[in-house]
């Protein structure tokens, strides 16, 4: 069934189709309408789940983790400051290897005060042990939520699904809602191996002594590394069930490309037009949308960029004192590559500033017209 819906609504439907059993969330713009709709669906019985109202995001994640530890399928959602407030619990959730799925509507973190889109909120949580999948459309947001449970429950790590605040969360587009039975076939119920139960009570997260702590971390790291294959496989299976797939990297006009634009989220759809514009001019340019950010698909990027001359990275975020986070991760991955393209780094669209075709065109001009990058990221859209 096709329905016109916002990105946030698509997320809510994805949660319902995934048969989440516990929802624990605190509202924050631009995530609010996700939990608003879910609470309505819980209240009117469309979603037979417990909805836990909490007083903060820290508690939202604590409740989500606790519920997941009892073996329930759990959902939460937040944004920006709320995500920052969850920071400690993000570590506990992944450290307990709990398959919590969370949607974060990307929004700039203050100060100055802003409610608008920026990916720095989630990227600054990149070391917390959560998988991160960045979406481009409402359809992808719904599909990724469903996929996220399969992934999380297999690798036993929590998954964060990212939607650009307002650009995706609040704009409407036609979305194909899969049949409940079809989703049930794709996503079986969660059967945890370990769970908190009065029938066989155990202490979770007991102190690990110095000899064991590193082993637990190593196990989690191995699970993260293995997760790339799981994400790819789950996406392939999803495609065989529903006819739609997204991959770890989504490539556009890349077959013979020499210069490629790398970005995440909704900016990629704007970039397509610009790529076509250059193609019409005969330039061998392409677009690569990074869908999976954690674990970082470094090897896949090395393989993909082999033979490319230049890569322009558009970061909708900035690590103060270091630069765009996607660019940093890419450069680190490319360090050991035998042949590496030149990396042109751009920062744009912070705090909700529009990334227009002209913005991307300007990036491409700089990348195409200069033999080498300047060394420092270029900031686009700064008041001169």
């Amino acid at each position, binding site marked *: 069934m096709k329905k016109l819906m916002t990105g946030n609504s698509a997320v809510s439907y994805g949660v319902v189709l995934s048969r989440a059993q516990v929802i624990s969330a605190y509202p924050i713009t631009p995530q609010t309408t996700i939990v608003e709709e879910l609470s309505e669906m819980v209240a009117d019985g469309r979603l037979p789940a417990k909805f836990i109202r909490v007083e903060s995001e820290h508690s939202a994640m604590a409740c989500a983790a606790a519920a997941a530890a009892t073996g329930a399928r759990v959902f939460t959602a937040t944004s920006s400051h709320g995500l920052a407030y969850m920071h400690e619990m993000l570590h506990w959730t992944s450290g307990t290897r*709990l398959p919590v799925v969370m949607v974060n509507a990307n929004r700039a973190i203050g100060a100055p005060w802003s409610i608008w889109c920026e990916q720095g909120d989630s990227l600054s949580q990149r070391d917390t042990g959560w998988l991160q999948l960045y979406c481009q459309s409402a359809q992808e947001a719904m599909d990724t939520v469903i996929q996220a449970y399969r992934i999380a429950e297999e690798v036993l790590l929590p998954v964060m699904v990212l939607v650009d605040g307002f650009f995706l969360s609040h704009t409407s587009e036609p979305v194909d809602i899969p049949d409940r039975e079809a989703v049930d076939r794709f996503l079986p119920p969660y059967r945890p191996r*370990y769970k908190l139960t009065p029938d066989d009570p*155990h202490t979770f997260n007991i102190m690990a002594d110095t000899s064991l702590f590193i082993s*637990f971390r190593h196990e989690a790291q191995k699970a993260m590394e293995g997760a790339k294959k799981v994400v790819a496989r789950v996406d392939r299976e999803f495609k065989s069930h529903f006819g739609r797939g997204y991959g770890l990297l989504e490539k556009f006009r890349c077959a013979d490309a020499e210069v490629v634009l790398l970005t995440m989220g909704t900016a990629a759809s704007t970039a397509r037009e610009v790529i076509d514009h250059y193609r019409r001019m005969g330039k061998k340019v392409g677009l690569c949308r990074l869908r999976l950010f954690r674990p970082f698909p470094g090897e896949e990027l090395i393989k993909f960029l082999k033979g490319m001359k230049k890569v322009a990275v558009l970061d909708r975020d900035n690590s103060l004192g270091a630069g765009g986070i996607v660019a940093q991760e890419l450069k680190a991955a490319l360090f050991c590559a035998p042949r590496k393209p030149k990396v042109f780094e751009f920062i744009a669209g912070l705090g909700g500033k529009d990334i227009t075709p002209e913005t991307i065109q300007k990036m491409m001009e700089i990348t195409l017209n200069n033999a080498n990058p300047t060394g420092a990221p270029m900031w686009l859209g700064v008041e001169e």
Partner: protein
Amino acid sequence: MKKKKPIKKKPFLPPMSLSYEGTQASKTGTWRYLTPTYLNKLAPCNEACPAGEDVEAAMVLAGQEDYLGAWEKITQENPLPRVCGRVCFHPCEGACNRQEFDQATSINALERFVGDHAFQSGKRFTPPQEKKKEKVAIIGSGPAGLSCAYHLASMGYGVTLFEALPELGGVLRYGIPAYRLPKKVLEEEIDNILSLGVEVKTGARVGQDVKWGELKKFDAVFVAAGAWKSVPLKVPGEEAQGVMSGLDFLQKANSGQTVDLGQRVAVIGGGNTAMDAARSALRLGAKPLIIYRRTKEEMPAWEEEVAETGEENLEFIFLSSPVKIITENGKVKGVECIKNLLGPVGKDGRREPRPIEGSNFTLPVDAVISAIGETPDFSFLPEELRKSAGALPVDETGATALQRVFAGGDIVAQPRTVSYAIGSGKKAAIAIDATLRGKNVAEALRSAHWGEKGSLSIALYKKGGADGVAPEVVKFSDLNPDYFKRQERKPKETLPVFQRPTGFSEVNLGLSPATALYEAKRCFNCGVCNLCHNCFMFCPDLAITARPDKQGYQINYDYCKGCCICVEECPRGAISVEVKK
């Protein structure tokens, strides 16, 4: 030869740090200093009920919409819930802890609802399986006699009720007007008691129709003849035609006899009999005028009845006493009164009226109903019991000076209410059973006590005491009111005032099923576990679980650390703390 490499087995590592040993191995109960235990307490309504009803248990069941179960609980103690649900002055509501929160729970109206509902559902008493050989005579078929007959007959005794008047019910039939207690309701409740096999002798006035000596063939006698003698006004003209006592008037009105009241009728007195007489006179077409020697505040009638009397626009003349009935040709022409001032507080705790000299005034009336008090008539009693004045003396077990003769109801010194009478009938039943079974009567009665106010329970008597219930009464401060919503008490529906003077239709219309449930759910269930689950939810050690019979919870002391959060979070004080390991 190749040497085999020793296989080094990697230790198993679960995905998260997790105790190998189940936490049940750690008996955190050993840390305990304070020990919580489930212990139901006495609810104040139970203690306050003169009829000894287990109000609390009935309210728990009513709150679960188990009205038949509630009826069973009530009628175990009191066979007249439909009567009491209409006429009881409900001291239970006066003791209700909810008063300190918003308003008392509507217990009285709920009792009526439960009684009516059970009757309409066909619920009736079950006769006893086994009969006992002993026989008991009961003199008087008012609430005390009926209650005693019910309990004794339920225990299998052969009971004979002697009633001087043509029909059973005593004050319930001949004193209380039909607009407060419809005769049909009374008859249905009496029939239910009689169905237990009670023998009835109506029109059998002991002392006249039945000689006292004839009662010797009974193994025990319960005297519950009431207080039917009116206190005279002691004013000139009292013997005139048109002057009558309140009880005589009510008895006639309640028997459907015609009473000639004329136009204006003066009702003397401020008690329930005066209110009933005045309101009945109104319904018979007269214009009553209530004359009371003190002010409204000192009126001994119940507040509710005074309020209803006020609603019906009856005229009061306060601070006035009759000094003379004015007559003409032997018939009442008027009443001469004198104005009073209130003097100092007298023996009964009320301010004494003092006549103001020269303040006399005359009111033209066609009849005078005197309702200034009633006393028992001892003339039918044997010599030994006739000595006293005012009330028949009984000891703390209800026994008179004669062996195996007990007394209760309005004939003895106790508040003259239906519920006290019902309670004294039950007390006599317990005392008679204990006597006939050769038990220590005083001890038997002690085991049946709810609290300190003299309320007696037949269930406790049969069990031999309140096993598993703490004797202390739950106070409001023992509750956790955070768990209760403020909810206004819903008023009873009443007959519109304009419809009342036209007949004896019932004024109170009771509660609708929705309101009854609302009121039942308003009950705090003081001191009694009603399976609300709070303790289970709060226990941080999962030491609290449902009992196998699902009638309560149990604590696993191997793991209870004694934090007592369950005690704190129990909304109704049903968990106690003991200091011990």
